[in-house]
Each structure stands twice: as C-alpha cells, then as structure tokens.
C-alpha cells in the first residue's frame, strides 16, 4: 500500500545540499521545485482516464439529475426548461405510482430471498460432504443461469410459461396466463430473476462455509454439542458476513436492477402496473413520458432511499456479525 515509488529514495540528483543563502541558487531551487511538482503529477496522469470517465458519466449526471428535478422539461433540445421549485417532488409524492412501485420492489425483494439466502444455505449445509471434482461439476451446472443473457432468458421463459403450449402449464395442468394476470406476472418475474441469481448465491455461500475454521466445530463437538446446535450457534453466525452481502446484493442489485430487462421484454410493467418496480417507473417517467423533471425527482428519491437502506444494512451487519479472526 505504501507508495513504492515514494518510499524508495530517489536517485540522488547531483544537486548538493547547500545553504540556500547563495544568490545564484534561486534558479536552481525553482528548477528542483518544478521537477518535484512534475513527479507529483505522475499518479494523477495515470488516474485521468478512469477518473475522467467516472466524473463525466457517473458523478456529473448525478448532480445534473438533482438539478433537473427542479425544472419542468420534456427533454426536447428546442424546448426551454422552466424552473418549478419543489413541484416535481410534490407531484411525485401525491401520484399513487410511487408507493405502488416501492411496494412491488419490496415484494420482489421478499420473493428473491428464498433464492439468495434460504436455498443456498440449506443446499450448502446439506452438501458439505461433497468435494473435489464432483462439487465443481455440480457448481458449474448451478452457476450457468447466472451467465444467461437476460433477454435470452426472457425468451425461453416466455416459451416455458406460454399459457397453452408451455412446458410449465402442461406439466402442472394449470391454465394460468402467466404474464397477463397480476399476481402470476409478479411471481413469474421474481421467479425468473431468482433462477438467474440462485447459482451465484449457492457458490458464494459454499465459499463462505468453506472458509469457516473447523476448529470451532470440533471443539464444540468435543464439548457434546449436537450437529444442529453447532449449525445454529456456530456455523450460521460465522456465515453472517456472507449472508449480509447476499441480502445487500438482493436489495440493491437483484430486485431493482436484474428484473429490469425481464420486465421490459416480458410485461412492460403490466398487466396494468403489476410488475412496475422503482426503476421501471423511473424509465416510464423519463423515457416513455419524457417528463424529465418528474423522472429526475424520482431518481433523487430512489438514490437517497437505496443509499439509506445500504447504510442501515451495513450498520446492522456491523452489529450482528461475528468476525472469525
């Protein structure tokens, strides 16, 4: 970490360290200063490309979004934006869509937790004895859906869940029209997203379990603890950092973001707005209704909201997790 190029003494320049009183030294000190400044600039030069892109495409737009949220504008270059104060926020909070979309995002989060927490933990605990080649083979299969392009998965699931000829309805004898009924559509979007991310969670939990030092379990078993007691009071608490990470991913990434391509290609937020989550609402406001002000206000609210949720989750995790070290 400590700067390798800084700590190494620079090859001593042929500049003798003399008393600065000498008059002719002024030019030399200036040159030395310039050289030192030049050296100081080097790390920034390496940073410029990445940092420049980050500022232009991430932080500048964040500030701009906050700015747009106080204007009424339809995104047209010829149309001037008119300042409207807090109107957009007022509208956002009085429209019924906001609450509904937050609620549906919450339902998606809850619906995803079995895929990102429950199944991976159960499977991880049940399969601890499987090792070596067999284990990597199974993991390779389970992980594969994580790599499937979201729209390709939308295509295959549209076929699997097709009302009359789809494999799911044929196998179960049901006649649900998955993407055209309110609850089935929400369940389908959540389930497909769950299928995508399950493999990732399984592999992450397996890695977490593998990193737990077995000395504790052995000591407990010597003390007469049962297998269930060891799991409940040792393994799960030691696994908690991994679980917090997965909850965080579910809340910030999987439920709001991974669902987006599926919603856009399968239900367009419908039927009515049964599958419109927060980011799809943002998309509708901005790109479909060209209401830049309202969309930006929603963007600011969601950014702050998710930031707070992340902070709270991290705070909780600091308090509950036990670090194994």
């Amino acid at each position, binding site marked *: 970490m400590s700067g390798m190029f800084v700590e190494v003494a620079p090859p001593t320049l042929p500049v003798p360290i003399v008393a600065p009183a000498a008059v002719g030294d002024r030019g030399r000190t200036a040159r030395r200063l310039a050289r030192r400044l030049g050296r100081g600039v080097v790390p920034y030069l390496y940073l410029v490309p990445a940092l420049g892109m980050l500022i232009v495409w991430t932080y500048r737009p964040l500030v701009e979004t906050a700015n747009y949220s106080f204007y009424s504008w339809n995104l047209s270059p010829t149309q001037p934006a008119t300042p409207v104060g807090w109107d957009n926020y007022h509208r956002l909070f009085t429209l019924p869509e906001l609450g509904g979309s937050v609620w549906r995002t919450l339902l998606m989060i809850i619906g995803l937790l079995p895929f990102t927490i429950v199944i991976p933990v159960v499977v991880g605990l049940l399969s601890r004895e499987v090792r070596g080649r067999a284990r990597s083979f199974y993991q390779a299969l389970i992980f594969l859906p994580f790599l499937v392009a979201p*729209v390709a998965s939308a295509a295959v699931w549209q076929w699997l869940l097709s009302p009359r000829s789809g494999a799911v309805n044929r196998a179960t004898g049901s006649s649900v029209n998955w993407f055209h009924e309110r609850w089935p559509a929400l369940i389908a979007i959540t389930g497909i997203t769950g299928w995508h991310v399950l493999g990732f969670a399984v592999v992450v939990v397996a890695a977490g379990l593998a990193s737990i030092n077995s000395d504790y379990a052995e000591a407990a078993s010597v003390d007469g603890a049962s297998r269930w007691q060891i799991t409940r009071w040792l393994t799960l608490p030691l696994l908690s950092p991994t679980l917090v990470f997965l909850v965080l991913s579910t809340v910030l990434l999987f439920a709001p973001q991974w669902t987006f391509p599926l919603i856009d290609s399968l239900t367009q937020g419908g039927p009515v707005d049964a599958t419109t989550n927060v980011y799809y609402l943002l998309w509708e406001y901005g790109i479909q209704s060209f209401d830049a002000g309202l969309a930006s206000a929603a963007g600011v609210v969601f950014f702050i909201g998710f930031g707070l949720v992340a902070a709270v989750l991290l705070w909780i995790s600091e308090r509950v997790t036990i670090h194994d070290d």
Partner: protein
Amino acid sequence: MTLATEPSVTEPAPPEGADGADTGAPSIGGAPMTNFDAPETPGGRSRTRVVVGHLTLAVLGLACIFPIYWLYATSLRRPNDVYEVNPLPWPLSVDSYRTAIDEIDVLRLLLNTTVVAVLTALGQLLTSLLAAYAFAAWNFPLKRLLYLAFVGSWLVPFQVAMLPNYVLLHQLGLLNTLSGVIVPNIVSGLGVLLLRQHLDGFPKELLEAARMDGRSSWSTLWTVVVPNLRAALAALGILLLVNAWNEYFWPALVLQRHNDVLQLGIRSFMSSTEGDDWGPLTATAGLACLPIFVIYLVLQRHVVSGFVRSGLR
C-alpha cells in the same frame, strides 16, 4: 474445508474400534469420508450424508439447467415438432436457425455485439489498470477520497444517471450509434478495486529493481507489472466481457429505434411475433448465449471465482 480432521485426535481413545476404518483414511480419492460427529455414528451416517449431498446438488443442478436445455432442445426440433414434449429433440433440424438468420440477420447482431462487448471490456480493463497502478504505486494527496469515488460508484445506478447521459450523448451526436453504447461504459469501479487488490500484493522489490534500472514508471508498468498480472487481468477481462455482452439497459436507451445488438434483436423479435414463432426465437436466444457458454466451458473455474470474488458488479 476440513471438517474431517479427525475426532480421534481430539477425543482420547474412542471405544469403538470400528471407527478406525474411517479415521485411518481421512481422504480417499480426495474426498474425506469422516466428520466431527463420527464418534457417535461411525461409518454409515457419514456416507448417508455424502449421498444426500450428491442428491441435493444433482436435483438443484438439473432444475437450474432445465430451461437452458429446453431452449436448445426447442431450437433444434423440426418446425412442425416444436410443440412436442419428448425431452429428446429427434430428428434434429437446423431449420429454426436458418429462419432466424434470414429474418433478423442474427449474424450481423452477433458481430455488433461482439464488437461492443470486446471494446467495452478492453477499455474498462485499460482504464482500470492505469488507475489501479496509480493507487498501488504512489502516495499522493486526495488518494483516499479518489479511491472512495471508485468504490462509491456502484451506489449510483445507471437509471439515476440516465437522463443527463442521454442528453450528453445527444449533444455529442452519439445516440443510435454503437460508440454511444461503448463510450460511457469504459470505466469500471469494480475493475479498479480488484486490480488494486492484486497490485497491493505485488512484490515491491520488482518495482524497485525496475526503478534502479532507470526505467520510467510507464515502461515499468508494461514490462514488469503487466506480465506478472496476466492471470488477474484475464480473469477480470472475462468478467467484464460477460457483463458487457449481457448488458441491456444502456443499449436499450441509446439504440432505441435500432435493434443493433443481440439483446435488443431478441426483444423486438419477441414483440413482433407475438411469441408464436418458438423455433426461431429460441434459436436466436440460443445463439445469443452461445459465445459466453463457450468461454465458460473453457475457463469455468476462472469465470466462477471471478464473479464470486467480485460480488457486486
């Protein structure tokens, strides 16, 4: 994971001599057969758990893989057999692929997507490498703050930044172009993080030696650091490539009316056929996944560990 280090060591002289069968060979063929509660229930129970483990993983694996299997199975049936439920597609036919290629020009989409994904990943790799090098090799004012800027970038979702970026792309004349898809994406906070972690573990003596030889930091980067970082760069590159290949939100925004990349081609296909043309649709989707699957097949371990280590995108 070694839950198998034997209880007989910690527990003096267990009365059951039978336990020895297991304890004597803690790892038969790389798979340890014993575990910490073996003294109570030697032999059989532990084997039961191995079987249960295999069953669990096999069932889950099959469930995960089935939709992908069904995708390719449907795409390989003859057009009239698409509604068959026979799990084996027989006789095979590539008619669906032919239709897909004729109808939506899949090959052009494949080429476009490859160009976008490769250039995006390479750009991200390059900017990340330079930035990570700066963070690992120097101390400079504002270092922590600037690093935090990269770490914090994942908290700003694309959707929140989308309208200003859309306007800027419009001003630059990049809307509806492939460059418009690539340019805004050539920075990766994750890339900077991961490469910095690797570089921090890099033997400093090598850098010092390079300095003593009088090499510039630039030549040190390419002649000393990069050759030693090849594995990490490859793993990160694959990760970035997969992400770029599967990216949907940004292309959908930039290429609104043109469906120039696979992800959008499939979407327009889905809506235009009202989802009845299952053969060509599954063929297109199958082709869209194929390059990633091939990479996965060859480099499985690196792909999985890369994603797991990175966690967040």
